[in-house]
């Protein structure tokens, strides 16, 4: 029924047009907020059609669109989604609605620019997930930095300028190497189509060089140790909404890049150098978790926790070669990738929720320091219940979404290498340690700060946002099957590409 309707274009351009309208609405803050909410909701509803109309039995690109864009360089405006990108699009549209609601009264300065930046960024991020042309992908990928740069810089905290510029330059450095890699592939294949790149035969030397270009580009975004240092700064300084988008979606773009570019285009180099990524992932999982343990700033703690959790994602993606070498079964390897994908979605909900929780407290107390709190449960019982729940999910409590992804990845890793799996499992201890210790110091204990005694519990708007996230976390934790079914065929295809040599 929707076969001819350009649904993907609609989902990309609706928020961007909405953002421009919001900018035009200008000074009328009330109108701006409702307009922004309307466009975010409309986009979310439109993206639900992607789920209902999705055929999960095939790995082919669906809802495909294609039109010539720049004929001189054979660049096309071509879009399409598979089971890997579709859930991420839904995550994006869902999160943006929450971000718009959560910043309803919080943002009082330049409201229209704020809302417009988020809406435009939403469209651009969806564009990255849909793009099947490498230049189109790059345009969305790179342009997205600009609204985020402005969000951090205009509405951020004390050191916002430093954080914004660091964020921009770090990611820009990564992406220009991606551009050169893409241009090299264009030179080899005379096409910018990502699917053509997948079929391109490449020598081992070329693959290794491309591997490193992709690694730098995507590792910065994920972020992987040791190029993660922009993330804590950006998170701490960004306004709550910016942190949520950054943690919930932007980090996923890096992992998505690994799946769309690295594994299918340079499978042999990935196979050869998978130990490098596994090593970096383990460092992220173990070392960065320890770094999180000593943080005094709640946002910084969650930022480091994000890096640690994203280490699981890259681990799950690159452990597949080992599993396949040992067991020779695609199904076994699929668990690693599927676990990584579930972890991505789950982390989107959980980290977003935790940043929102910190935002709720920050709006009342104007402090992110753990030591300024204590005994919040006495004055904000509903909030405390939700925060403890999200903290448990972050620590990977069974029954929450955090458990599913981590468990699948660890299970898959055991098939590959026992010791790697043991190291990865330490996250269950460390993750619980830093999250619950923070909860203990913030939520429980005696009220020492008189300001805490004055706190008011969640209002309806905040309860709605956090409540809906809690429902998603629980739903995904108890019944992850709908998500995994959708991605199954695409993951299988991805693995086939990854294990077949291109030499």
């Amino acid at each position, binding site marked *: 029924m929707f076969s001819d309707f350009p649904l993907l274009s609609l989902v990309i351009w609706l928020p961007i047009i909405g953002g421009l309208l919001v900018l035009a609405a200008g000074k009328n803050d009330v109108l701006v907020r409702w307009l922004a909410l309307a466009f975010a909701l409309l986009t979310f509803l439109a993206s639900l059609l992607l789920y209902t109309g999705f055929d999960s039995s095939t790995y082919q690109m669906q809802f495909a669109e294609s039109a010539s*864009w*720049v*004929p*001189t*360089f054979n660049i096309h405006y071509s879009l399409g989604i598979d089971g890997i990108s579709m859930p991420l699009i839904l995550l994006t549209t869902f999160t943006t609605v929450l971000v718009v609601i959560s910043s309803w009264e919080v943002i009082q300065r330049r409201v229209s*620019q704020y809302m417009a930046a988020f809406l435009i960024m939403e469209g651009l991020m969806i564009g990255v997930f849909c793009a099947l042309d490498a*230049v189109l992908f*790059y*345009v969305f990928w*790179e*342009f997205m*930095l*600009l609204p985020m*740069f*402005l969000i951090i*810089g*205009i509405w951020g905290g004390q050191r*916002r*300028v430093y954080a*914004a*510029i660091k964020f*921009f*330059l770090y990611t*820009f*450095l990564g992406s*220009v*190497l991606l*551009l*050169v890699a893409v*241009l*090299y592939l*264009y*030179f080899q294949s005379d096409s910018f189509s990502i699917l053509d790149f997948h079929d391109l035969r490449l020598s081992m030397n070329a693959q290794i060089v491309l591997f490193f270009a992709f690694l730098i580009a995507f590792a910065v975004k994920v972020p992987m140790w040791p190029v993660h240092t922009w993330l804590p700064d950006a998170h701490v300084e960004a306004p709550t909404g910016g942190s949520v988008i950054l943690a919930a979606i932007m980090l996923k773009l890096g992992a998505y890049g690994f799946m769309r570019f690295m594994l299918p285009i340079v499978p042999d180099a990935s196979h050869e150098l998978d130990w490098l990524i596994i090593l970096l992932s383990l460092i992220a999982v173990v070392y960065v978790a320890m770094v999180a343990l000593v943080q005094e700033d709640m946002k910084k703690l969650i930022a480091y926790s994000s890096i640690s959790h994203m280490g699981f994602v890259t681990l799950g993606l690159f452990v597949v070669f080992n599993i396949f070498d040992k067991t020779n079964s695609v199904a076994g390897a699929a668990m690693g990738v599927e676990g990584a994908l579930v972890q991505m979605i789950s982390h989107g909900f959980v980290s977003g929720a935790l940043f929102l929780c910190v935002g709720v407290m920050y709006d009342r107390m104007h402090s992110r320091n753990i030591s300024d709190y204590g005994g919040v449960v006495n004055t904000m019982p509903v909030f405390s219940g939700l925060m403890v729940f999200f903290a448990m999910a972050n620590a990977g409590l069974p029954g929450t979404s955090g458990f599913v992804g981590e468990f699948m990845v660890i299970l898959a890793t055991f098939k590959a290498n026992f010791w790697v799996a043991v190291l990865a499992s330490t996250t269950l201890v460390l993750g619980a340690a830093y999250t619950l210790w923070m909860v203990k110091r913030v939520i429980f204990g005696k009220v020492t700060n008189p300001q805490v005694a004055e706190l008011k519990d969640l209002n309806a708007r905040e309860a709605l946002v956090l409540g809906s996230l809690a429902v998603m976390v629980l739903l995904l934790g108890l019944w992850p099957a709908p998500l995994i079914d959708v991605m199954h065929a695409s993951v299988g295809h991805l693995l086939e590409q990854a294990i077949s040599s291109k030499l």
Partner: protein
Amino acid sequence: MNFEMPNFALALPEIFVLCMACIVLLVDLFVGERNRFITYLMAQATLVGAMVLTLGLSSGEVQYTFDGSFVRDTMGDVLKACIYLAVLIVFVYSRDYMRARQLFNGEYFVLGLFGVLGMMVMVSAHSLLTLYLGLELLSLCLYAMVALQRDSIAATEAAMKYFVLGSLASGILLYGMSMLYGVTGSLDIGEISAYVAQNVGDNLVLKFAIVFVVVGLAFKLGAVPFHMWAPDVYHGAATSVTIYIGTAPKIAAFAMVMRLLVDGLGGLHVEWQGMLVMLAILSLAVGNVIAIAQSNLKRMLAYSTIAHVGFLLLGVLAGTENGYASAMFYIIIYALMGLGGFGMIMLLSRAGFEADRLEDFKGLNERSPWFAFIMMILMISMAGIPVSAGFWAKLAVLQAVVRAEMVWLAVVAVIFSVIGAFYYLRIIKLMYFDKPEDTSPIKPAFDMRIVLSANGLAVLALGVFPGALSALCVEAMR
């Protein structure tokens, strides 16, 4: 020897501009201070007329006249049209700026028109002599324009430096040309090209000639290490002159590179490629790194121009039709961005206030969100971030370099463009993150407001739909 009547029709735009420049000069003597806008309108009408003539005469084929020393081809037509357009925009931006500084004299427009004539001759030159003639006509006009602000110490100093270094560069270029003449026995670019194609052997004099020619061209383009004049001249001259120097003559200089190196010495591509690689890398490095240290926007844009010249050279040195087309694409987009950048400075300036320091852009988003947005587009375009014309310009050049199997050079170029992104971001930071220091209202003239907005939006529009312009450039290089 038969005397053949040259086909004047091909040079009609040049003849028209020459006549009109003289008429404007005469008319300006008789219109008083109060009616000076007549001069302005006539200068603009001249440019529009030249545009109509050039486009009207345009045909797909290559035609020669004046005994082969003058050529009319698609590349020339496109570049000339861009030059008219650029100068037209420069005049619009300059009018109020000049008036506020008691500089609103006929000389500016007359010199500007003669400069346009020089550029047209350069673009259409097909012999060394014509090329040199055009170059000198342009250069003399530029020297005089810089010196227009005769009471300003900075301007006179800039004019002096520009004159001395420019003459030196012209001398070097001429020396190279004389060697070329000595070796090939001809001034005609076609005959030089034929000679080079036949005598591929090791010819030391020819190599020397290339060195001198390349040095001369590098001076005129402002490529490192021959860039010293650029920051001082850009800074010292009145902004209305800087914007002129920084845009249209670069297009003409690109044409000169094409005529001399590609049309004339294309057979020796391997010889000059290495030199251009050095010039390009140095320009990218020095331009981008030193721009960071600038606190004056005009100086910063001067270094940014140097970096852009590095990118331009990358396209040329690829040595393929694809590369030349992308270099042409680059220079046209560069001119458009440069116009906007200097235009913004002129927009914010007023009598007694130049608005050329970085701090003057603080908090522009609060003073005028629309023009802050325009400036942001220009800055991301100069940094090469999508969606903007500058991104496609860089993409085109880089793909040409990768196609010429010099991936390492592309990596060097992109790394320097990351360094360069910092100082463009700093402008965005000043406009959006900081509080304004200067709160006087911005009230530009109506036409300036429209043209500057169109200029910025054109950069954005070309960023979304670069196809037509890039196809045109490919067509021009066939």
